[in-house]
């Protein structure tokens, strides 16, 4: 498989590899894909009080395109609001990394990972609100 220079760059120098504390209330974690499919992405976001993604980390089991897609996704969403991050589309990743047709699913997975991390963050926030409203009554 001949990859674009951008895929190779992200693969060789992945941005934002690592983990955030998944127990933390202001961290959302997305885990998408499956080992049996050959791709698993974990993408985490740390969100500020004003709703801005102030940090993002990823770990990926998958091919070069999957690693590059998740690396790019974390790079992009840092500094975005949750709404902005929700609007990141896999087609933008395909375009930026010049992914061949057989690798489009890698970009889909990265989009899913962002959405899943945001959903997890929102779920936690709602839970916390319920908790605090219950505590206040």
């Amino acid at each position, binding site marked *: *498989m001949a*990859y674009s220079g951008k895929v*190779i760059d992200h*693969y060789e120098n*992945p941005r934002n*590899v690592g*983990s955030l504390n998944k127990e933390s209330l202001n961290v959302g974690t997305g*885990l*998408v*894909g*499956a*080992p*049996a*499919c*050959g*791709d*698993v*992405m*974990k993408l985490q976001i740390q969100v500020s009080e004003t709703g801005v993604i102030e940090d993002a980390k*990823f*770990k*990926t*089991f*998958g*091919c*070069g*395109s*999957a*690693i590059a897609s998740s690396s790019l996704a974390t790079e992009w969403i840092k500094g975005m609001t949750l709404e902005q991050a929700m609007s990141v589309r896999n087609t933008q990743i395909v375009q930026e990394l010049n992914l061949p047709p*057989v690798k489009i*699913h890698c970009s889909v997975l990265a989009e899913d990972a962002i959405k899943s991390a945001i959903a997890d963050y929102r779920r936690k926030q709602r839970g916390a609100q319920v908790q605090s409203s219950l505590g206040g009554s």
Partner: protein
Amino acid sequence: MAPKLPIYMDNHATTRVDPRVLEAMLPYFGEEFGNAASRSHVFGWNAERAVEQAREQVAAAIGASGREIVWTSGATESDNLAIKGAAEFYRDRGNHIITAVTEHKAVLDTCKRLEKSGFEVTYLPVERDGRVNPQAVADALTDRTIVVSIMLANNEVGTINPVAEIGQAVKARGAVFHVDAVQGVGKIPFDVASAHADLVSLSAHKMYGPKGVGALYVRRKPRVRITPIIDGGGHERGMRSGTLNVPGIVGFGKAAEISAAEMAEESKRLLALRERLRLGIEARVTDTVLNGSLEYRLPGSLNMSFAYVEGEALMMALKDVAVSSGSACTSASLEPSYVLRAMGVPVEMAHTSIRFGLGRFNTEEEVDYVIDLVAQKVKKLREMSPLWEMAQSGVDIKSIQWAGQR
């Protein structure tokens, strides 16, 4: 000392032409350009003489006679000619064919094609070590079985089938026994008599000969018949028409001669290199699994899974080392290796497999370089693998309900 890069360790895919082979071929691209079928002049006679010498050389490598060798364009054609040719010729005796799920696509797709024209095919499973059980063949044989096709050694994992026992079972029931011997001949002892083989596919470029030339052994005593699949001038005693690739055939002959002469020594050297590679990796990398039998394996073959690291990503990291992977990501199908799956390798482990194929021109320095590189890169990729992180923190990955699980 660092070895010269890139390093070639994909000798199951193809091998480099041995310089001695190239030297033997060169005159046939130049002054000796004749058509071996030209009977009326010295150009043709010289080409024919060279082709007949090569026929003897290739035959000798498998214990056959030159008159039993039919030249083809390569192993895919040999497999097609053997199976389609015998199935067609013996059709009045039955319509049942037996093969195994781990065969090369040239065999499997040929069988699938025959199924469309009324043949019934049994695809035998293999044992966990990748080998076909002779008893399974014996049990599958019926009075309607006309062809059995089982490979000598597997191209993905390098495991060696017990072809002698299988051949015995096949001949006891009178079916034709075809052996795709492409990966084994020249590397391990093989002869048509002890394998009870009727048809044997061979390829030059897997034994340091040129691409684009192969052969099919067709037994004469007792005579085995095949219907040709290419019609034309009646070359190769009518079994395969088409002007012969004289330089390629000369190269094939030389390659077969060298492989037969040097096999004992070379296989010892390759086995030592393979074990150095295997043990070297195992000493430095945890959570690896050897795929396929260790005992019944081609000397230069190593197929290993590296848990929690996807195969294509690892191949990309092993830049300057040519290997291959059973990962889905190396193919357009998105399904991992059907050979590993047939052996019962879990699908997530099949995604992490790497095939190393050592050959005549590999050195100890190269092996040591590759061990070091594999250890470094697996470590790096595991550090960025969520599965490795989970495994290290005691999460049972199998207990997770994965989305999109097939």
